[in-house]
């Protein structure tokens, strides 16, 4: 009885592209589902030749990874798409960018390098910048010191299935304080473990260790996402794909 789609199976993926995009301005209030919908529509509007899964409800081949939480801005969100026809990555980037609302800007698009492994594996840390309007820089610095000095700082996260305790201290790789235009700023590198420690968990940890309670809502921006490098910073996750590509181009140039 089950009806099967007539005709040939969907064409296979012939090219994988990896893209970086932003969540800026008011669009920081978009959730990952909002972004997924927007990206899928934009891919259609930009007429990117997507590869699809088989069946009566074919889905375009898209993988999203590690979305920044609703309310947090980001300069470094990543996703990967499978194409049924080869395209120039830069042209895809430009067409997609033009099809998205301002604030969701597609900054980079590279072809996935053969043998470079999965992109998700390269996204194990985030560098956040958290603006704390109304908080004194010294007060923040003292709180950060207390956090870094602690062995563990357990905070309670609210999740879909109730609450869950997580050690926020363990996820924090480094933290530094700056003051810009009278506003205290926390630069913090956070390891992406499960469950993920997010900016509001870091804030909860600061409240726990030093009773830091900002008078105004804080603003978080994910400045970079990638693998932790030896210096404790976050490496460009598209680096390996670019490396393969430039080495191929060199080979070709030599022929």
């Amino acid at each position, binding site marked *: 009885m089950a009806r099967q*789609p007539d005709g040939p199976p969907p064409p296979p993926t012939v090219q994988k592209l990896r893209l970086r995009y932003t969540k800026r*301005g008011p669009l920081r209030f978009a959730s990952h589902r909002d972004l997924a919908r927007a990206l899928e*529509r934009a891919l259609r509007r930009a007429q990117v030749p997507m590869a699809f899964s088989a069946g009566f409800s074919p889905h375009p081949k898209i993988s999203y990874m590690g979305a920044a939480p609703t309310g947090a801005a980001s300069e470094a969100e990543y996703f990967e798409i499978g194409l049924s*026809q080869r395209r120039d990555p830069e042209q895809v980037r430009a067409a997609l960018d033009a099809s998205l609302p301002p604030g969701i800007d597609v900054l980079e698009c590279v072809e996935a390098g053969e043998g470079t492994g999965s992109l998700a594996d390269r996204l194990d840390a985030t560098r956040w910048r958290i603006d704390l309007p109304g908080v004194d820089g010294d007060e923040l610095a003292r709180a950060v010191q207390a956090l870094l000095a602690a062995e563990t700082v357990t905070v309670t996260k609210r999740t879909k299935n109730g609450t869950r305790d997580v050690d926020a201290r363990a996820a924090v790789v480094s933290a530094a304080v700056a003051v810009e235009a009278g506003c205290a700023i926390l630069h913090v590198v956070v390891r992406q473990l499960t469950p993920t420690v997010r900016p509001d968990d870091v804030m909860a940890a600061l409240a726990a260790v030093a009773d830091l309670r900002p008078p105004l809502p804080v603003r978080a921006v994910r400045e970079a996402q990638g693998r932790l490098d030896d210096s404790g910073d976050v490496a460009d996750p598209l680096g390996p794909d670019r490396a393969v590509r430039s080495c191929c181009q060199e080979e070709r140039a030599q022929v």
Partner: protein
Amino acid sequence: MFADMAAGAGGYPGRVMTVESLYPRLEPLLAQVAKPIQYVGGELNAQIKPWDDVAVHWALMYPDAYEVGLPNQGLMILYEVLNERPDALAERTYAVWPDLAGLMREHGVGQFTVDAHRPVREFDLLGVSFATELGYTNLLEALDLAGVPLHAVDRDESHPVVVAGGHAAFNPEPVSDFVDCAVLGDGEQVVGDITDVVAAWKEQGRPGGRVELLARLARVEGVYVPRFYAVTYGADGTIAEVLRTRDDVPPRVGKRTVMDLDEWPYPKQPLVPLAESVHERMSVEIFRGCTRGCRFCQAGMITRPVRERTITGIGSMVDAGLKATGYEEVGLLSLSSADHSEIGQLAKELADRYEGTNTGLSLPSTRVDAFNVTLANELSRNGRRSGLTFAPEGGSERIRRVINKTVSKEDLVRTVTTAYANGWRQVKLYFMCGLPTETDEDVLEIAELAVEVIRAGREASGSKDIRCTVSIGGFVPKPHTPFQWAAQASAETIDHRLRILREAINADRRIGRSIGLRYHDGKPGVIEGLLSRGDRRVGRVIERVWRDGGHFDGWSEHFSFQRWTTAAAEELAAFGLDLDWYTTRERTEHEVLPWDHLDSGLDKEWLWDDWQDAISEDEVGDCRWTGCYDCGVCPTMGTEIQIGPTGRSLIPLSVVGARPQVDVDVDAAATDPVHTH
């Protein structure tokens, strides 16, 4: 795009006033509320024009949550039509949920538009589209949040002119204290006329203040200004007379009708939200109006006559809309889409055109006839056949004759069985409960029908894996329909009938488990009934409910029957009236109805005769095919039926895509039947 509000040099003459964005003050609040994305705007195809470049500023409101309001076609159309004018701008605003409303009050942030986050208070006009009466309390909440006086008489010329539109505006009397004007009928042309009047009045230096502006607006065809009409009541509580208080306004206000839909191919650039909304698709209205003559259907009655968009007009709107939005699905909207004179050809040619593009076509299928199944098969061809919807509306043949939606039980079962045999797994059947003359037996027949449909369907499809969902809503009598005189069934009656229906369906478990029953209790319908057929005295009830904290009445988690009944009892007592007087009381032939001075074109005598025919179970045909039966609309409004066929056809487009498939879902969600909520 959020920061272009600087005054242009040499702005528009008159009171130049650059209006600042509330966004910087709103943003910190958004971090503290649920689904903040709904308040930030920035949708694909949204528009922001510099404030000082135009003479007339419209805020357009849909008085419900963003997710419901954003897809509203009417609002989207007017937004584009107005923004295309060089002398006007339009921005949108929606009902704000209580979490944000509380913060806005605490921090002194007023009701804002989502486009440029400008304060609604600063606009020249606030247009509010009422698809249902249950949005009235949300209007009051928005006015209060905006800092606009609740009562029209308390506003001065610095406040926006509040204009009500939409189907509920055909009886705006219950909200006449709160709105300045109501617009009857199609909005595309009248918003332009209103803009002209406001622009001229501002240009002239606002002579005569607000009253003069309203008097000028009252002379625009289709615009009703309640304050210029006085209502007096008789000893029995009914209306004695409605008289105009100035002789330069019309004694009766007639509706507006757009005759050539091809001239108004809107929305051209449908808005695509980032947030999830109730309709994840674009819609093209394939015709307006309906002359099937279903007696319960206000939409069918007030939108006559039928005006079709041509097949080529539809084709280019679908094409342009898909390109502009990136949507995967197109709904072909109307009150009865299978009745378009070129629907068969349209379905085939659109399916051909979008073959291999993963574009779905959906049809709000509501009539029970074999042709609808054929059409659905054609549209779905090779795609998923999930759900098909039919709306018999009445459970028994007898009640279907009363409502003029005649279909025999045999035809109904045969049609649904055909659908199952053609591979459709799930059929939804829409019914109403509480129809005039209805008995328990009429409703119980729904159960028999559903059981028979499942039996025959299992046989025809050779599968037990089929389902039938019975969706049933309480009937609410509406103004400008033959049932406008009818007694509404009480909530107890509705609840009783729903209960015995549920028991009957569950009686046979082997069949019953293939049948789903979806219904709402009868209480919200009673309040909708009060608001639908109410008069000016009902305004006090609405205001009281809002003051007691009522809003979002279309949402069961916010609706409080208790609050409404208490308010009704206390506020109506002053007039010697009560809730039942407005709802379960049958009206007599010569009673002056609150909306009699508002002209939908329908002849009151014809409506009364049709009501009498309903009681005697006599049917009436469709004037598209059986000839005019003098309902009154065409001669009164100077309109005529506009239908094809045109003889034209769609040429194939060259489209990019890789999948040899059209995914079609002919689904209930494609339309919300206008009589249920």
